[in-house]
């Protein structure tokens, strides 16, 4: 649309041009082959879960006390962790995208570490820092009588640790793509930095922020390794759905599959409702 707007032409010519334009951006045909393979790599295992599921026992398996407690805890902790990711990761992304200081490259690679570290190692690292004998843990215990491991707070910390890079990377990319032109214009028109941020920057990067938020929330929902090593496993306090799935599998495959499907459904709902309106809708 924008391509043709600035070139006044007869309607007929415009239409042919449009069609040719469409044909030009069409995908090369070979790309469908790896694309389909890629889709199947992801979709077929989930199909396997569906085929293996014991549908008759499903209602009973999903409404057990442990399942409901885990679902509730998962949603609550994932929501809390996502909010923390936005409040802390948003400014971090802004610093990374717009900061002028030295060492930003190093800083960025540190931010990406949770993507590389096995979550179990992340959990161990948290335990060494915030655990009973950790630097921060000892101070918290002596100063305030607070212990973090085995509490719901530990679950939120673990999820925030692993999910933060997803938000930061998405938002930093959006900030870089948006550039600083509009903010500069707003400033020359006399808008304060706060007003510019609220009325110009945020609307510009909103799609990136939303997709980062969805990714972070999804990562929180599926978090397992760091939680099990750092927070422990206790119904109602630290036992999130992935932990319950893991422990259920020890004795009851059908129960574990049912709970996994519950997790899949929750994830699909979140992505389906949040994603199209934000990332694909606004362009």
């Amino acid at each position, binding site marked *: 649309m924008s391509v043709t707007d600035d070139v006044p032409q007869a309607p007929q010519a415009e239409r042919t041009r449009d069609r040719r334009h469409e044909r030009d951006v069409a995908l*090369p045909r*070979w790309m469908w*082959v*790896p694309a389909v*393979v890629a889709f199947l790599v992801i979709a077929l295992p989930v199909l396997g879960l569906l085929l293996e599921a014991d549908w008759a026992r499903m209602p009973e398996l999903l409404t057990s006390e442990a399942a409901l407690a885990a679902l509730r805890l998962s949603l609550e902790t994932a929501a809390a962790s996502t909010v923390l990711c936005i409040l802390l990761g948003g400014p971090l992304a802004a610093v990374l995208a717009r900061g002028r200081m030295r060492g930003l490259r190093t800083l960025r690679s540190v931010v990406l570490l949770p993507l590389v570290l096995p979550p179990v190692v992340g959990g161990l690292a948290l*335990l*060494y820092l915030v*655990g*009973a*004998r950790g630097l921060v843990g000892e101070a918290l215990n002596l100063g305030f009588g607070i*212990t973090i*491991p*085995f509490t719901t707070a530990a679950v939120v910390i673990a999820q925030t640790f692993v999910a933060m890079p997803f938000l930061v990377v998405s938002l930093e990319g959006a900030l870089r793509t948006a550039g600083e032109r509009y903010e500069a214009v707003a400033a020359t028109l006399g808008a304060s930095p706060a007003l510019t941020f609220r009325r110009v920057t945020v609307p510009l990067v909103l799609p990136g922020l939303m997709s980062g938020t969805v990714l972070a929330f999804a990562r929180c929902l599926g978090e397992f390794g760091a939680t*099990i*090593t750092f*927070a*422990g*496993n*206790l*119904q109602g306090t*630290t*036992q999130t759905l992935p*932990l319950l799935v*893991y*422990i*259920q*599998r*020890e*004795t*009851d*495959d059908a129960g574990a599959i049912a709970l996994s499907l519950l997790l899949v459904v929750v994830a699909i709902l979140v992505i389906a409702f949040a994603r199209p309106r934000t990332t694909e809708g606004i362009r």
Partner: protein
Amino acid sequence: MKVRALLGLLAGLALLLAGCGGSSGSADTGGSSAAAAPRTLTVLAAASLTETFNAMKARFETDNPGVTVRISYGGSSDLASQIVNGAPADVFAAASDATMKTVTDKNLTAAAPRIFATNVLQIATQPGNPEGIASFADLAEPDLKVVVCAPQVPCGAAEQKIETATGVTLTPASQETDVKSVLGKVSSGNADAGLVYVTDVTAAKGSVQGVTFPEAQQAVTNYPIAVVKNAPQAGLAQKWIDMVTGEFGQKTLDAAGFGAEK
């Protein structure tokens, strides 16, 4: 141009797949034992057997030139489901009768399993036992941070059995997914006490202190071993079991804290 790119992509994909497939079978058969026809014995063993089976592996490979023993350690139920799902294996050594039963129920052992060791729970405390824990009932103290295994795994099932037998109910800070995690929570100072196997305390070499309690005998854990049905190396598998149940194997297990074969 497009075709070449596609071919390159497919070739890359094929290489990748070939790499994935090949690594599981042939990688370990080479190496030092190139003289005779090299054979590989695959043993699936419960994680608590790591130290003892590694010692036996060294002995077995010395006694049987040309043989490589490949041991896959893991949670017993993980290993059992691997066998049920067709993983190639010669020997299965489980840390509970229940997990071995999931394999025998599907007729996937060559012969009836045999118990080669037993294990009992012990209380693991901080070194020096600063909280003065002396009995199972002491663990019910509300101020204590006690960590146990989840009831779905063998060490947790044993703990529940003891709770039922003694009438003492614990309120744990966490129900860990395996016994080594319980040990880790105690040795890292995050829990005051945990219930682990006596062999875990031995293996921890002083980073925790063991407290024996008589009620542990109410829940003795059996370690069954069996040759897997259609084992590629059935002869070697039986030889391995003979070693585990023989003098050297039993001595090694005893030194690690395991109870004797029944």
